[in-house]
């Protein structure tokens, strides 16, 4: 954990990217190693839960739009 410092800088995007990659199920090995070195498990878990919430909300919005079309 020598990269502790890095944890605070620019990780939001990295968490977001990792979570998005997870939802599609595709991730490059090098990116993954970066994730493993820089992200804390708690970050990934919270990121995953936020991602899931956003996922639910976006399907809901989509469904509402479709239902209101007719």
């Amino acid at each position, binding site marked *: 954990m020598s990269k502790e410092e890095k944890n605070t800088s620019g990780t939001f995007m990295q968490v977001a990217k990792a979570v998005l*990659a*997870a939802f599609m*199920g595709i*991730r490059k090995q090098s990116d*993954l190693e970066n994730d493993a070195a820089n992200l804390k498990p708690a970050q990934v878990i919270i990121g*995953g839960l936020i991602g899931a919430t956003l996922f*639910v909300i976006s399907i809901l919005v989509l*469904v509402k739009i479709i*239902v209101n079309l007719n």
Partner: protein
Amino acid sequence: MAAVHGDVHGHGHDDHHPTGIMRWVTTTNHKDIGSMYLWFSLTMFFTGGFLAMGIRAELFQPGIQILEPELFNSFTTLHGLIMVFGAIMPAFVGFANWQIPMMVGAPDMAFARMNNWSFWLLIPAALLLVSSFFVPGGAAAGGWTFYPPLSAQGGLGVDMMLFAVHILGASSIMGAINIITTVLNMRAPGMTLMKMPMFVWTWLITAYLLVLAMPVLAGVVTMLITDRHFGTSFFNAAGGGDPVLFQHIFWFFGHPEVYIMILPAFGIVSEIIPTFSRKPLFGYSSMVYATASIAILSCIVWAHHMFTAGMPTVGQLFFMYATMLIAVPTAVKVFNWTATMWKGEMTFETPMLFAIGFIFLFVIGGFSGVICAIVPIDIQVQDTYYVIAHFHYVLVSGALFALFGGAYYWLPKWTGHMYDETLGKWHFWLSMIFFNMAFFVQHFLGLAGMPRRIPDYALQFADFNMISSIGAFGFGLTQLLFVYIVIKCIRSKEPAPEKPWDGAKTLEWTHLPTPAPYHSFETPPVVK
């Protein structure tokens, strides 16, 4: 850590002392407990299989021949419960017990005594389920999903079933906690999370799903029990309750549950395919991520089991889209296995045959799942044989085939003897033929409108039902061959080669002798 190691070591000396039955009753050794789980699940597999043979015998011809309708319903109900909770789930826990400590370089499971308790809880539960056939009123007959109002009625048999489900749930939760703790705390130095074998990863994620889903099941069972005995009306419309509430809670458990039964199967297949392709798993990290995302998504699709129960359009569309999207990470896995085999130096020993059979047939089950997810189609096929075909493709040729493949793969490590390769191949091919014969035609039956859970049917369904029954009998008989192969392997005099699979890369093959010693890693290996 030190305390854990010391503790296990302490047991080591005691464990060798009790002999005969007491060795098994008091054992805290992960291999002993793993073996007991596996034998238990094999026994339950044949118990549930016996019920399946009864169902298929009755359905061999139209009309009522062997089973009275009430008993027929008990057969389908207990067949489902016994196969799900008695055969498939304990079998995977048995694999976890044997393999996880060896694969992460640990001496044993983290909570050795709790491990013993979670196994022995299974026995009273199994006895309750089986003996409920012989109490007044007979066994539960409302389906393995025990929806009220049917399960609110019914006699002692229903209570015995509910109690059994409670016990099995408790056992599963303890098993899951044990697995999580072992994986997170007892890995050998250097075994980082991202170096763990895929089987361990899938089990870690499954264990979290179990901890999430089983308490929900316990909750719904408790509500049913209080409705039955203590005057509550959670699910009783006459008292202001709502039977549909039951379906929501049940399936909030139930859909994660189906992934609980398939993720460890993905794990086993992800060990076998690289070994026999002699290539590392393609996209290991994608696999880890896809498994995690399947686990999360599996919690938001439950109402696809309830499209005909009445739901606003918004709800139907939501669950339809969410369900269809979950097929994406699942498809990524199929892609990864195929890419692993691509240009590999493949050989086709029995474990590999089962793994390839798994991929092939699981894809069919996945597709029929997506078809069921489309609301206008599901309104037609809900509660027909189409759904039966779907989930037998994912559970039998999915979960069960992976278990067979894993058993052949690790039998040499477990027993120190090689199984009979020729017979293993026979087992695979006969299973493959008879399985498809039994279940593929059920797609046609379902599309033609044959309802599930009925002992009699209209004449136009006769031919396909006969084909299905013959296939089912063949499949059932073929499984006796598996028992013979296992016993022959255990009794064999010839020692297995140290490393029968030259492509195997995981710790149990590279760092432990064959057969595996009673205590896996008394000093942890160092993983580079």
